[in-house]
């Protein structure tokens, strides 16, 4: 088969895919590979977005795509680093990945609570009970327009499949600990998670991304959540990667009636970070909470692209995104809210605020509300400001140094977001990460 590939970066990933297939040997026969092949074919027909594309106007992926990526190189994580990422006081179920590769010996998957299944997507495809569901989502991921999701499906290996049974309340959080080391050549990895929470179930996920200083890699994450009726999912991303790392994080939550999906992203590291977050409403009385906090400097770039599709009446969405930008950093918030004609009595709130601390830092904020129903409450606001000088003076007049006062006000600005974490230990970990970032 000869496909003419237009995008040189797509072509490079095509070459990498051939290498990848050669390494697989016998595993080419497994059903999971069908989806990779299908995705690879699809990828060849796509091109990566440029700043000419409206949804990517403020983020250039050139630097991310121009790296000469290899496949992940095995490495170890020290106990000290592992402990520093763990949440003190939480008996988390832990899945440890080093350079994108699953480290079973460091993971804690024993004695899973009743009603919780954690397996690989490969295994979920072989199990009659989960096969249909997994196939449906993999097919979608292999054929979507988003080249990053298709790219993920092309290379994903050992993806994680999580199932929460009906009415199972999983108190222990699932903690994905993703740690990356500095390697000779930049590498890429493609975490893939499919999560299904049955009716009345509840699940909390912590998604930690950390790295050694100077580590250069591309983490291209895809999460699919199916949150059934009256189920509740809390998903917290705590990211303090190296400032040379790239991350594209694609998350879609399909929500049934009476369900809640809460996503909170704390981004402190990364050279270019793009979060694509979609909440798709499939029933009434759904709540989607999308929150983001970032604190960046230097050449860092963090971009939040959210999309909430209100298709059904009586649902609500809350969005709060706040960022602190110093140095030459850039922040982007593009919040799309679609309220379809039938989605009466929708409540949609969106707020985006930024503190821009230097002349060279920029924040682009673009709320996009498309409302076709007439009986709805929708609001949005965007503010961009600087540290309040009166507050600075007040704090310094009490003996706080300039640095301490600046940190106190930045913390104060972002805490409104971090307080949305409904777990004290996780919130404290997030705050500790923020203070660590101040020290840099």
């Amino acid at each position, binding site marked *: 088969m000869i496909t003419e590939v237009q995008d040189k970066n797509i072509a490079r990933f095509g070459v990498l895919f051939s290498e990848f297939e050669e390494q697989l040997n016998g595993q080419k026969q497994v059903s999971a590979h069908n989806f990779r092949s299908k995705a690879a074919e699809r990828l060849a027909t796509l091109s990566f977005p440029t700043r000419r594309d409206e949804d990517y106007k403020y983020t250039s992926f050139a630097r991310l795509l121009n790296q000469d990526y290899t496949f992940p190189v095995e490495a170890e994580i020290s106990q000290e680093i592992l402990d520093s990422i763990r949440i003190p006081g939480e008996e988390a179920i832990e899945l440890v990945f080093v350079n994108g590769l699953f480290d079973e010996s460091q993971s804690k998957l024993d004695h899973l609570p009743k009603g919780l299944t954690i397996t690989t997507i490969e295994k979920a495809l072989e199990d009659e009970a989960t096969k249909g569901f997994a196939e449906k989502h993999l097919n979608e991921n292999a054929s979507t327009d988003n080249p990053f999701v298709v790219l993920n499906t092309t290379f994903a290996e050992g993806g994680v499949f999580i199932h929460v049974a009906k009415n199972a309340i999983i108190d222990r959080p699932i903690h994905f600990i993703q740690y990356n080391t500095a390697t000779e050549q930049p590498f890429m990895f493609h975490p893939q998670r499919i999560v299904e929470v049955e009716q009345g179930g509840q699940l909390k996920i912590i998604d930690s991304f950390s790295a050694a200083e100077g580590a250069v890699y591309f983490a291209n994450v895809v999460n699919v959540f199916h949150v059934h009726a009256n189920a509740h999912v809390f998903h917290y991303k705590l990211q303090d990667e190296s400032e040379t790392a790239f991350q594209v994080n694609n998350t879609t939550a399909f929500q049934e009636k009476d369900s809640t999906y809460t996503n909170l992203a704390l981004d402190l590291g990364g050279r270019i970070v793009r979060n694509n977050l979609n909440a798709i409403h499939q029933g009434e009385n759904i709540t989607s909470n999308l929150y983001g906090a970032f604190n960046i400097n230097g050449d860092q770039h963090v971009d939040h692209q959210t999309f909430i599709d209100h298709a059904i009446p009586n649902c609500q969405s809350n969005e709060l995104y706040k960022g602190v930008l110093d140095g030459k950093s850039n922040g982007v918030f593009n919040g799309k809210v679609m309220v379809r004609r039938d989605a009466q009595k929708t409540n949609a709130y969106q707020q985006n605020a930024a503190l821009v601390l230097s002349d060279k830092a920029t924040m682009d904020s673009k709320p996009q509300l498309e409302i076709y129903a007439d009986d709805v409450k929708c609001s949005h606001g965007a503010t961009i400001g600087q540290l309040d000088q*009166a507050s600075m003076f007040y704090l310094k007049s009490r003996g706080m140094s*300039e640095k301490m006062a600046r940190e*106190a006000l930045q913390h104060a600005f972002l805490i409104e977001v971090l307080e949305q974490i409904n777990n004290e230990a996780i919130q404290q970990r997030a705050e500790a990460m923020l203070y660590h970032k101040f020290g840099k």
Partner: protein
Amino acid sequence: MLSIKNLKVAVEDQPILKGINLDIKPGEVHAIMGPNGSGKSTLANVLAGREEYEVTEGSIEYLGQDLLDLEVDERAQAGVFMAFQYPVEIPGVNTATFLKQVIGSIREARGEEELSAPDMLKLIREKAKMVGVDQSFLRRSLNEGFSGGEKKRNEMLQMALLEPKLAILDETDSGLDIDALRIVSDAVNQMRAKDRSFIIVTHYQRLLNYITPDHVHVIYQGRIVKSGDKNLALELEDKGYDWIKEEVETVA
């Protein structure tokens, strides 16, 4: 303790203080009075280190140091405390956390031993009780949604915790009802000590019924035009400021 010599201050090139001379000895309480716009709050702000005020001439010596050479935080660490006329609301800064941080940094700067967390908490509770600040306020954001009186009490709490050598109260009494006024004056009276001085800037004589000043100065048109003891304050209460204005204008 504090020696102000020929202090001239301008705001946006507009002269406000036109040559202030003032000597304060350890343990003294000085009241600075004067009509609106006379420059009394400017004096307080210059002492605290607000940048918008440009010192064009003169000097301020504080405990042997050039006060004007010290940064705002260094002044606080050296024992200067200003109770603000309008304490700023800072959402997201937890009051208790803030108090612990400032006690910590002040103690560190003064070379004092670090307080343990329980000792710190005990100290804050004790002083909060003294100035009538309810425990629930400590859990709230700094000054956010506090009433005027609550904000002023919070200022007194910070003063009690930071144990300054020179405390400046900038119209702390304005807008206070009599109960709140008593709390403020009780705090000052309890803290009066032979090595601690106070500058009380006020528009009204009423506060001085509760805090007896050693000296009273009247500022008018950027100068101290009259100094005396507490009786001067009583005279001002009776006669208002007009007779002083007339005196100044006759001399001129």
